């Protein structure tokens, strides 16, 4: 079993930091685009169950397409580099974000909506003061899930020359005779970035909900992120 070459790490410290920043930029750009596009779509489909269903189902099928294949599909169209990676990452993030936000907005109870209407709120006020705040946990769960998976999928982008930490794993590790040290460093830094971003988002959600300041839910509920949220509700009757 080969050893970790510590001297390689100290010699390439600057490169590692540079690639980590590149990785964060890739994730940041993709998530910003995905959030900006997904929220309006989710808001549009919230009162239209048919389109909500279409959005959720399409997301489910498209999400299963492996990232390697998706990047490969994009290469003949946009070439290699950061473009196919960002497009691919945005696509995956969109799928998670739209379905989560749509589920969150649809699950606002009807009586709550009606009493808000009865208090004289306009459609816009209803959306911003009632529906979006109540859907916030679902929306944030989607953002966390999408961010964590984007950090991981971005590493695969290296094989279409997308840069980022995948470059340590692919160009400097696998392609140089499976050199273990850069692979291990890339894996470790990418994992740390995912964990830190996830924790930051939990903190952000806590700050955004001043009316519900419970202790930070660091582990509770996180395990629910595995299956699609809708699948965790049991059927009402037999």
């Amino acid at each position: 079993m080969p050893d970790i070459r510590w001297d390689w790490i100290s010699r390439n410290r600057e490169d590692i930091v540079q690639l980590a920043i590149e990785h964060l930029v890739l994730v940041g750009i993709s998530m910003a685009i995905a959030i900006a596009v997904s929220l309006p779509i989710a808001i549009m489909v919230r009162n239209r169950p048919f389109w909500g269903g279409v959005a959720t189902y399409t997301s489910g099928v498209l999400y299963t397409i492996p990232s390697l294949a998706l990047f490969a599909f994009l290469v003949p169209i946009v070439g290699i580099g950061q473009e196919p990676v960002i497009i691919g990452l945005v696509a995956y993030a969109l799928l998670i974000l739209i379905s989560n936000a749509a589920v969150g907005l649809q699950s606002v109870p009807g009586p709550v909506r009606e009493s808000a209407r009865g208090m004289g709120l306009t459609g816009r006020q209803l959306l911003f003061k009632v529906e979006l705040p109540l859907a916030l946990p679902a929306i944030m769960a989607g953002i966390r899930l999408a961010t964590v998976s984007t950090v991981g999928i971005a590493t695969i982008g290296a094989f279409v020359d997308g840069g980022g930490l995948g470059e340590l794993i692919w160009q400097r590790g696998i392609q140089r005779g499976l050199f273990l040290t850069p692979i291990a460093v890339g894996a470790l830094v990418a994992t740390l970035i995912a964990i830190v971003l996830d924790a930051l988002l939990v903190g952000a959600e806590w700050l955004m909900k001043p009316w519900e300041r419970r202790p930070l839910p660091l582990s509770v509920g996180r395990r629910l992120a595995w299956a699609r949220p809708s699948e965790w509700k049991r059927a009402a009757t037999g």
Partner: protein
Amino acid sequence: MGKTQRVEAGRDRMTSLSDIWNAFNDPILDGPGETVTHLKMSLVALLFAAGIGVAAGVAAAKLGRVAAFVVIAIGNLGRTVPTFAVMALVVAVSSIGFWPAVVGLILLGIPPILLNAYTGVKEVDADTVEAARGMGLTSFQLLGRVELPVAMPLMFAGIRISAVQIVATAALAGLVGAGGLGILVLSGLANNKTDVLLAGAIPIALLAVATEILFSGIFRFLTPRGLRLARGPSNQ
């Protein structure tokens, strides 16, 4: 001018469909053979992952708090460690080949199954358990006749998620030299050949989508009606 270009691009795409088919069947690239390798790798990995995951998840649900902590930690780790990194690490510390790739796929396949098996058994309704105890069931009978059947839909969901993930990640085995359809993608990219690239990418995508559809169909059929999970957000 623009119109001519569009027509030519269209003709290009038409020819490349048969090109892709030819590239897939090229005796050197051996698309059908790599597809078999891809599926074999995925199936072996899924069998191991399901066996280990279900056994460990059920055991952890019966043990104390430490076990719960370990299960949740493994689950979170499985969600945050990049799949590409796991495949590369396993191959780098052992060797290139079929079995190292399978080991990587097993490691990636375990967390969803483990977590769902654990949650499924742990969150069986306390009243149900008490009623079963009141009827005189031993611990073993309770597990076999009540807890496992009730946990079944969640376990199936876990196995389905894992199966799709394993079939998808098996594509990366090609990148680390272990065979499978990923090799075609890699070869197409390295030689700048779109037909070879797509001859790998299209089957990879189809296999993953087919796995999702197949497994959700089978498991829906196998689950007793009363235990089925709600489908879709409209079904509240």
